[in-house]
């Protein structure tokens, strides 16, 4: 894939906490048109990567969006450059309605003075995002009473209205039903047509169905990279997973999950 203005290029990213190396020189890139998955066992550094890219924790190395270096910038400035993210636990503003949530997300490029005015009418981008995520009927619902899946979609919708070029999604289908997962996956596919989508996920089934490319992290380093099939057949990946957990119990849990 070629590097475009909407491409996220991470080079030799390192994150340390008090001498503990959480991410030790990770490089990967993601481009518009693909749904890139970031997987790995617990503690592999997946979320930490996203945190560093979005300015939540301090990292060294380089993470570029188009020509812009992201590392070292304050979080809100990184967002303004076009990098949006979600969190493991759905975080929407419970006291505000779906519309208000989206309106806030859509407003980051508004002038400060216009903030002092009340909202009149609905931004067309919000309508589009609502349709895209199937939340049109929940316009006036307080976000706090949405279902878990709906909250996750609202978060994605918020990224859409803020017109993020790069969407970093941290476990977007955790806790969702199978139908909801399928819907989410299809949504991501549509979104990825024009944007870069990077998903951190544990759900292998979900990954197999919707990933364009996969990067496997292990102990803060890239273990393997490629298509779903390539990664699954990589012996190093198999070894890591075999070596880190006792097979029978894991299998049981795995079946339950299926």
């Amino acid at each position, binding site marked *: 894939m070629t590097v475009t203005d909407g491409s996220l290029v991470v080079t030799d990213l390192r994150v340390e906490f008090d001498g503990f190396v959480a991410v030790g020189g990770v490089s990967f890139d993601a481009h518009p048109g693909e749904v890139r998955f970031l997987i790995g066992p617990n503690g592999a550094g997946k979320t930490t990567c996203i945190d560093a890219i979005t300015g939540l924790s301090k990292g060294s190395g380089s993470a570029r969006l188009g020509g812009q270096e992201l590392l070292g910038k304050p979080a809100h400035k990184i967002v303004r450059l076009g990098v949006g993210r979600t969190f493991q636990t759905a975080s929407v503003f419970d006291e505000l309605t779906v519309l208000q949530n989206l*309106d806030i997300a859509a*407003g980051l490029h508004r002038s400060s003075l216009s903030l002092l005015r009340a909202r009149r009418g609905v931004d067309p981008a919000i309508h589009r995002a609502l349709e895209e995520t199937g939340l049109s009927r929940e316009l006036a619902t307080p976000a706090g009473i949405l279902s878990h899946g709906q909250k996750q979609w609202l978060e994605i919708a918020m990224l859409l209205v803020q017109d993020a070029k790069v969407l970093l999604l941290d476990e977007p289908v955790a806790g969702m039903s199978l139908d909801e997962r399928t819907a989410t996956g299809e949504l991501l596919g549509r979104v990825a047509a024009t944007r870069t989508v990077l998903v951190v996920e544990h759900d*292998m089934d979900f990954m197999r169905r919707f990933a364009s490319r996969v990067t496997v992290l292990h102990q803060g380093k890239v273990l393997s990279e490629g298509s779903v099939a390539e990664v699954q057949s990589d012996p190093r990946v198999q070894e890591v997973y075999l070596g880190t957990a006792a097979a029978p119990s894991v299998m049981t849990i795995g079946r339950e999950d299926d």
Partner: protein
Amino acid sequence: MKNLKPWLPLIGIGVLALVLLAVAPSVLSMHWINNLGKYCCWAIAAVGIGLAWGRGGMLVMGQGVFFGLGAYSMAMHLTLESAGPDSLPIFMILYDPLAPLPAFWEPFRSDLFTLLAILLLPVIVASILGYALFKSRVKGAYFAILTQALAVALAVLISSTIRETGGDTGLSDFKYFFGFVLSDDGNKLMVYLIAAALLVVCLLVVWQLGRSRFGELLIATRDAEERVRFLGYDPANIKLVAFVVAAVMASIAGAMFVPIVGIITPQEIGASASILMIAGVALGGRASLFGPALGAMAIGWGQSSLGSSWPSGWIYILGLLFILVTLFLPMGLSSLVGKVTGLVWRPRATPTATTPAPEFTAPEFTEVKK
């Protein structure tokens, strides 16, 4: 207007304006007009606290600082006006009759400068303080304690700088208010009306801020500051605006307090005064529009009437109010009104379908093995 509901607050403000500006002056005696004026001042400060604390989540325990800025600006002006041109205030004569007026007093001879100082001093101080605190992400209890400490520090500072500020006995005995004789009943009424009108204006400002996008953003920041950051806003700036607006309101409150009450001392800006300002807001309802103002007025009235008939009882009642309201009505009495009439819509965070997301779901290994 197809839908009346969004305009209800405005109608409420209108009714309050009518009561304060038209009904009260024709019904109440001068004594109660004066008292009401004092309550209005506390209410103005409370409206600001409601914005910063109720909607912005910043528990401002040091509003005395800004109250003091406005009050002392006004009091210095009125002291100089009472002393007359080229004369020193009495308390200064006492310490050194020949020394000139301290430099920072001189500009307060000007009417215009005084008015500007009342509005701009809190903006400057709150901006610097807020910028520093919010940028370094001081919040919650830290913020509350630090602001309270600053209020104490300012009160101690004023108490100990006697020739410069009048010390603990403060500034009092004002004769004139921008040329008006303060002992005249007509002028007292005028001062009251100004305070009441300013309260109405402050309510309008908070109403407009509340219905604006900024208001939504402020609540969003209160509930999930980090999330707001990842929507591309700097929460520090959002909080700063609310903090500065609250500071200006406290300053206006202080400035009007001086001609109405006739004395300002460091005690009015110290720890317990700052906490008492919070009391009304908590009682009325921190996040509502009218709650803080009405709560502050209720506390003021309680102090005037109950404090007279049963002084120690009033302290116990005040203490119990703090406890019971916080315990049972964290959103204040206004939430009770809302619950009863349904006028105030208050979403409950009760997810309809909650599937708790397990910390760690299906381990990857099984998938690979297949």
